[in-house]
């Protein structure tokens, strides 16, 4: 068989270990953009070129290029940073990124609207706070997620350590990032560094890794290319035995292409903690060598595994890692949302009193100073007072973690004063997430983050009309089918199809272990509300005790369950 590799592969290959012509692109004063090939390379350094799509037409009329700027996403394994780091993150956001910081669905933060000439300042500012953006985007292992687990504090510490180690282990070896953004020094061998894990063309597509700690599946571990589920010793729940290893999950699809589908990962088996790095590397290199480099829409690991079969893939990983998987341990998840408010951890300080953790509500992860809700200022005030750490959750919220009992009142007062508490919001809103989409995301087909709160208000009213105002329902929205807000795991998923229209999917189970199913295509707000009205009406009347909406629609046959997405998602 003869096939041409796709253009991205050529760009990576020619890039001299992720340098490309970025230096020249940055120096080009005629445009706020970078060279098209460099936009591919820039992703590995953590940034996407975007433009304000609201202004495109008007600018073209004025003979101005699109309003280019950059989104930069940090690498922050497990979402943890110190208060000092938060102050740096905050300062950069205020000074160089239009006064805003976004918490992402993968437990990191990102900036929008960075002008080209400020990229270096942003990266250097982060570096000074010991933060980086390597692999923030790009065909490489992305930010490693880890359940922030405020109550199971003892287990969390150990699991989080593995998240960090996986992240470090899967970093590229090129010095391009340092050369371009930090010291500028070009050492011998620049452009020819050995990349033992990735090789010169890196991965065929993005690669996502997450670690879950049952019973919480907030990381949506099955939606990742590589997943680990922490297994505690049943006899001693704070002792980590090892992990169930998963591979081949992923959300992204392409509208109208039935050969693409969201997929839950398969269990490869159980491994001990000391085998984690070897397994992670083996999964990555297997995908490196077997992944599709011709068609990017089929390049994720989930398609590789569909093609190879799970057994063959498992065997390949075992061979590469030099181990044999043990049988996966039984696990059970209860939810994939956040626990708002105060939770006491199991770790004890000197007074033998558990530390406290406060989960704040940050709608769609968007932090800025709004009239009456100065969110950024509030977090700054908390960071100045706080001695523990901050944890960004997979649901775009923030945990003020490790607060001594004596400090609780002060922290809570600051949070309340700045509009950061969850109290007063409906369970629906507190369980909802949305991606950024318009106007900046180049992939967006419809609104998401800036429209979703408005839609939620109407759905809240609907739910109230049917007596469901206290019902938790996982509702997620994205502006395109790439799935950043993991909409295919929601009980009610809305995936942007065109301006003002969405595909409506139903049937997630509220724990992130079942995909939903397309229910209506390409419908606008009126039809969405109409459909939900009918659905809520039936649900309110016919539900079993404690039955969730996602289970109800399956039981009553409103949609059929997705059990093998490659074959039944589109049926």
């Amino acid at each position: 068989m003869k096939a041409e590799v796709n253009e991205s592969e050529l760009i990576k290959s020619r890039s001299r270990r992720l340098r490309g012509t970025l230096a020249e692109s940055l120096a080009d004063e005629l445009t706020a953009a970078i060279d098209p090939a460099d936009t591919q390379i820039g992703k590995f350094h953590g940034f996407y070129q975007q433009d304000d799509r609201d202004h495109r037409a008007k600018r073209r009329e004025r003979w101005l290029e699109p309003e280019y700027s950059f989104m930069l996403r940090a690498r922050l394994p497990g979402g943890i940073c110190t208060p000092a780091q938060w102050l740096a993150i905050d300062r950069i956001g205020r000074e160089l990124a239009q006064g805003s910081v976004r918490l992402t669905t993968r437990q990191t933060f990102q900036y929008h609207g960075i002008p080209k000439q400020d990229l270096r300042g942003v990266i250097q500012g982060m570096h000074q706070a010991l933060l980086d953006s390597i692999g923030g985007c790009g065909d490489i292992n992305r930010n490693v997620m880890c359940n922030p687990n405020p109550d199971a504090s003892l287990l969390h510490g150990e699991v989080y350590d593995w998240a960090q180690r996986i992240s470090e282990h899967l970093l590229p070896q090129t010095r391009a990032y340092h050369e371009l953004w930090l010291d500028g020094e070009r050492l011998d061998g620049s452009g020819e560094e050995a990349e033992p894990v990735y090789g010169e063309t890196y991965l065929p597509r993005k690669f996502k890794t997450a670690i879950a700690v049952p019973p919480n599946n907030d990381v949506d571990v099955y939606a990742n290319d590589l997943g680990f589920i922490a297994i505690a010793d049943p006899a001693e729940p704070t002792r980590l035995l090892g992990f169930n290893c998963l591979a081949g999950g992923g959300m992204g699809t392409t509208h109208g292409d039935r050969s693409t589908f969201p997929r839950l990962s398969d269990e490869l088996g159980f491994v001990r903690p000391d085998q984690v790095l070897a397994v992670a590397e083996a999964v990555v290199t297997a995908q490196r060598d077997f992944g599709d480099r011709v068609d990017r829409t089929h390049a994720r690991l989930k398609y590789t595994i569909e093609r190879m079969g799970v057994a063959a893939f498992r065997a390949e990983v075992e061979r590469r890692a030099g181990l044999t998987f043990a049988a996966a341990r039984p696990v059970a998840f209860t939810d994939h949302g956040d626990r708002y408010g105060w939770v006491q951890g199991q770790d004890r300080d000197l007074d033998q009193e558990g530390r406290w953790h406060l989960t704040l509500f940050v709608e769609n992860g968007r932090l800025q100073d709004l009239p009456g809700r100065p969110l950024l200022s509030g977090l700054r005030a908390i960071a100045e007072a706080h001695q523990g750490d901050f944890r960004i959750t997979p649901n775009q919220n923030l945990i003020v973690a490790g607060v001594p009992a004596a400090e609780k009142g002060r922290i809570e007062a600051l949070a309340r004063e700045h509009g950061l508490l969850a109290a007063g919001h409906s369970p629906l809103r507190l369980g909802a997430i949305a991606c950024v989409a318009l106007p900046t995301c180049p992939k967006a087909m419809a609104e998401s983050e800036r429209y979703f709160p408005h839609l939620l208000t109407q759905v809240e009213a609907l739910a109230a009309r049917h007596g469901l105002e206290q019902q938790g329902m996982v509702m997620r929205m994205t502006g395109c089918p790439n799935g950043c807000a993991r909409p295919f795991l929601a009980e009610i998923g809305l995936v942007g199809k065109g301006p003002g229209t969405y595909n409506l999917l139903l049937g997630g189970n509220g724990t992130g272990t079942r995909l939903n199913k397309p229910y209506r295509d390409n419908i606008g707000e009126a039809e969405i509300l109409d459909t939900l009205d009918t659905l809520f009406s039936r649900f309110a009347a016919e539900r079993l005790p404690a039955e969730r909406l996602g289970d109800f629609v399956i039981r009553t046959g409103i949609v059929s369950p997705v059990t093998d997405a490659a074959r039944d998602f589109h049926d």
Partner: protein
Amino acid sequence: MALSQLTALTSPLEEGQLAALDQALTGLSTTQIAWVSGYLAAHSALLAPAANSGRMAAPSAGLEPATEPALSGGLKLLYGSQTGNAQGLAETLAGLARARGMQPQLVSMGDYRARDIGRERLLLILVSTHGEGEPPESALDLFNYLHGKRAPRLEALRFAVLGLGDSSYEHFCATAKAFDAQLRSLGAHPLLDLQCCDISYQDAAADWSARALDLADQVIGELAGQRPDGAPQRSEANVIPLHWARSFGTATTNAAPTNHPLVARLLERRPLTTADAVSDVHHLALGIEPGALQFAPGDALGVWFRNEPTLVEAVLSATRLDGDAAVTVGDTEIALREALSERLELTRLHPTLVKSWSGITDSELNGSSKPNTDSVTDLAALCEDGARLRQYAGSRQVIDLIEDHPRRLDATTLAALLQPLSPRLYSIASSQAEIDDEVHLTVSLLRYLVGDQRRLGGASGFLAQRLDEDAVLRVELKPNPNFRLPSNGDTPIVMIGAGTGIAPFRAFLQERAARGDRGRAWLVFGNRHQRRDFLYQLDWQAHRQRGQLTRVSTAFSRDQAGKRYVQHRLLEQGRDLYGWLREGAHLYVCGATAMGQAVQEALRALIEREASCDRETAQEHLDTLRRDGRYQRDLY
């Protein structure tokens, strides 16, 4: 007739000798006078050869070609013009001189070799002043030479200077004043006192011209007697042809627009800046008849505009005058409303108008009450304080004066007080090599507040807001021979522009693209925000794509904490820029005067640094570039 006006002051003769000479010449024919003049010249040469050579600093007589006489005894008219007004006056003056039978040499200071000044005997200078007292580009060489160490003594020279300026500026006619003072200090003899003309200069200039020519005529007569070869110097007149004089010669601001009935039509207007930009800049495409209007990249277009109708009505209302009242403007009688709309200046308030206004008393109108006493006192005090007066006038329009200080006057008085409307100049932003039936302009809308009243620039408001698509407007060409692409298309060019100063460079690149030129081009552009006001950004990108634009440097002053301007970028890239200069690049600077000065300082500094020379040498290097036409500026 000339002799009767000679005096002992303007000639070396005593009164008695003059009378005798007058008597001797009475009744002689032109031929007889010519013979006598030759006789006397020869006589003079025989009697006192040493006296002549002793007086002159340029002793190279005999080695010069016939067109460069050792003593250029004829009438030389030197003009230093920026917008063309001084040139227009000089051409008129030359015409008047020719009508008197004189054969003046009319030369732009830019084409004049400064060291030849030592050979001149009779010189009339017409020179304008710009911005902060700056000479026009073309006058710089001569100006610097006269003020430099090598300036010769000029005892043999008789001269008169006419200056053009705008008394609303602090350095009113500073260039003319400096020329006049420096010529005097070098020993030259003034024929007349310095004449400084304000923006309404026609009457004063006509008066000065007549007096200057009368006196010049006398001097020519005297000089004829001193010529060693006895030949009338008129035969050696060396009129330097001006290839574009035809279209411009008689243009004056008093002329009604119909004197230059070039008509253009607005084809398209598009904004170039975003809604949140500091400035509001528009691109205009005007349709023209290519046969009637031919221009070169670098030229400007004068635009005749109509004042805003609401402004006209406001003036009528504030003066309580009838818009249908007939008034005379120029030679025509028209309704006051029409005059205010199309013939009189309403958007530029000149200090002279404030002064005239201050002088109005109600006695000019029967039966009306006196104006408010406070207003009279305030205005009088204002007129006494030059700086305050300029500040007042510079930040207001005519309507503000009228409303601040209401006076009763009749329509005729009002029309006479107001300045005639003058066309506004815009550098042309297109090339006829690319599109021959269009002229493109880059217009920044002038907006400001007076109190809480919104005021618009006259022409920019007309062009950017009021003119409808497909409507016609009157225009005239203002050629700028001092802002021209190098004739060799392989010559590298560096184009430095800020704000709408970028306009002529669009024409340059269009021209070069159309000609298939392959010379490198470097654009240095400054404005406020890259995102909001990078004028013609897509054009420059297309030019670069096609290889027409080699390099781009930008300075957006408000995109970072500290302000950065084009001069900073030039200094940062001094080594490269100097390299381009060494490779023969031509430098062009277009934009506001202050920017031009800052750029000049940066250029001097970078030459000093890169050539490791001292300040004077660097300045000479720049002067040489300017003389060679490799450093051209269009500042406003």
